[in-house]
């Protein structure tokens, strides 16, 4: 066996991954003609248009909803990771499987489950009205709340796993030592636990935030016309408005944010390791 074993996978990824990205990047500088055709002129017009308030509000909503979803995931995921790590070997395995298995069930199906529950005639409203908690149905579906629920539901395991790994690595004698020396729970958390699990928290937040930012199905199915996110805007440019150059520019705007975040977190992890 020689290094040539790398040629087939490398060639495949160059042709079907790198080249398409380069092509779509090039498209982002072109222009759209009257009939949706591509005019090969170079300009930054698409990027300038992308930061027009009209589109910027969608970018801002994507960032805001992704941040909220990330925050909620952290709030519940962090203690869950601790709980799993504190169990015995066998229980740990079971809890991790239980966390992962639904994650691998179809994305659409999981989103549909929430439509089924949240819609006006859905389960939540028939239960609430049935027990007399409300007299008229609560409208949650097609709002930002539904989108956030869907995002948290989908990406929560991404938050738990890296935090779990960092909690597992933590030397628990440090906590015992601090307690023996009279530290309060709050002090222990702030000065020992949190700094030592920081790497896990950062990866977890990135792993949740990044897919949320590019989400398409969740806002498409659970959100309404007023809760569109970047994924929807990009899809519309490609499949409805047929303005591919503008769609390409929007894609690279999202890509840029994602790559920046990944780079920043990689740097943070590296400095941590030193």
């Amino acid at each position, binding site marked *: *066996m020689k*290094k040539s*074993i*790398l040629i087939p*996978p*490398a060639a*495949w*990824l*160059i042709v*079907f*991954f790198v*080249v*398409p*990205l380069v*092509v*779509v990047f090039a*498209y982002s500088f072109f222009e759209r003609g009257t009939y949706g055709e591509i005019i090969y002129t170079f300009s930054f017009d698409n990027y300038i248009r992308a930061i027009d308030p009209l589109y910027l509000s969608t970018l801002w909503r994507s960032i805001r909803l992704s941040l909220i979803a990330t925050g909620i995931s952290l709030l*519940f995921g962090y*203690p*869950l990771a601790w*709980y799993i790590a504190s169990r015995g070997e066998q229980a740990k*395995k079971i*809890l*991790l*499987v239980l*966390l*992962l*298995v*639904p994650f*691998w069930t*179809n*994305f*659409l*199906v*999981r*989103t*549909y489950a929430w*439509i089924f529950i949240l819609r006006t*005639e859905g*389960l939540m*409203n*028939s239960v609430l009205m049935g027990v007399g908690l409300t007299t008229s149905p609560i409208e949650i579906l097609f709002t930002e709340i539904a989108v956030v629920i869907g995002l948290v*539901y989908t990406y*929560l395991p991404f938050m738990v796993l890296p935090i*779990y*790994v960092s909690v597992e690595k933590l030397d628990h004698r440090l906590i015992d030592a601090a307690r023996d020396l009279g530290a309060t729970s709050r002090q222990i958390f702030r000065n020992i636990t949190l700094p030592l699990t920081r790497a*896990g928290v950062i990866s977890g937040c990135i792993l949740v935030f*990044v*897919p949320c*930012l*590019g989400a398409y199905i969740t806002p498409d199915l659970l959100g309404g016309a007023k809760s569109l996110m*970047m994924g929807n805007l*990009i899809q519309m440019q490609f499949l409805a408005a047929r303005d*591919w150059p503008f769609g*390409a520019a929007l*894609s690279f705007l*999202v*890509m840029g944010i*994602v790559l920046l975040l*990944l780079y920043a977190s990689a740097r943070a992890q590296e400095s941590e390791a030193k």
Partner: protein
Amino acid sequence: MTSRIALYLNAWLVYGFIYAPILILVVFSFNQERINAVWTGFTVDWYLKLFSDGDILAALMNSLMIGIPSTLIATVLGTMAAIGMHKYVFKGKRLFESILFLPIVIPEIVMAVSLLTFYVWIQLQLGTVSVILAHVTFNISFVFVIVAARLSDMDDRLEDAARDLGATGWQTFRHVIFPLISPGIIAGALLAFTISWDDFLIAFFTAGVGSTTLPMKVYSMIKFGVSPEINAVSTIMILFTMILMLLAIRFEGISKTAKTIGS
């Protein structure tokens, strides 16, 4: 002590949040009532209707026609990448490693639009083949990650011993490396098939007329409105994926799967 109870309650809350919607979905696939979310009686009618629905069966066939070949190709290429990256040091290794990881981390929609643009640019007819090519592309990365994790656990001295005893490169691979990493390859293949089977977005952008996959069909059903048939088809899809994933976990172990995602 109170913090222990809080941790315990939080765990119940999160697992309840994760499982309740799925359980509700499954339970209501056996409900007679069509419109309202009220239990009126047990039935398997919605399942029977599915199996006589030509569109759904055609979509199922398309999903298999795409999933099987793309899994096979991605498994071979991903394994080659993992072995090559494990054994050799070369210029640009870091760069190639990033390229191997990128398909997992970049937003799916960006990958979808770039493939669509590329296909139109090279004038490739959108259809089953275009989806297979797309699925192979992201699955190479997933297979690579799983097999690479397996290889890093392998004792390299075994390979040296085989070489010292006169085995050729191929014999070493066939009789030493391959048996050791085969559970990883199988787990990688199962994972790849699951991802292909579940993919909606990439197929949505790169499929052509007549190559509607099962998730695409389900999507159009959802867009049309809530119906018990969707609950039924969802239940079948959930069952199918869970079986595949439990098999993958059996082969590779949960802690490694968790670590792979965690890192």
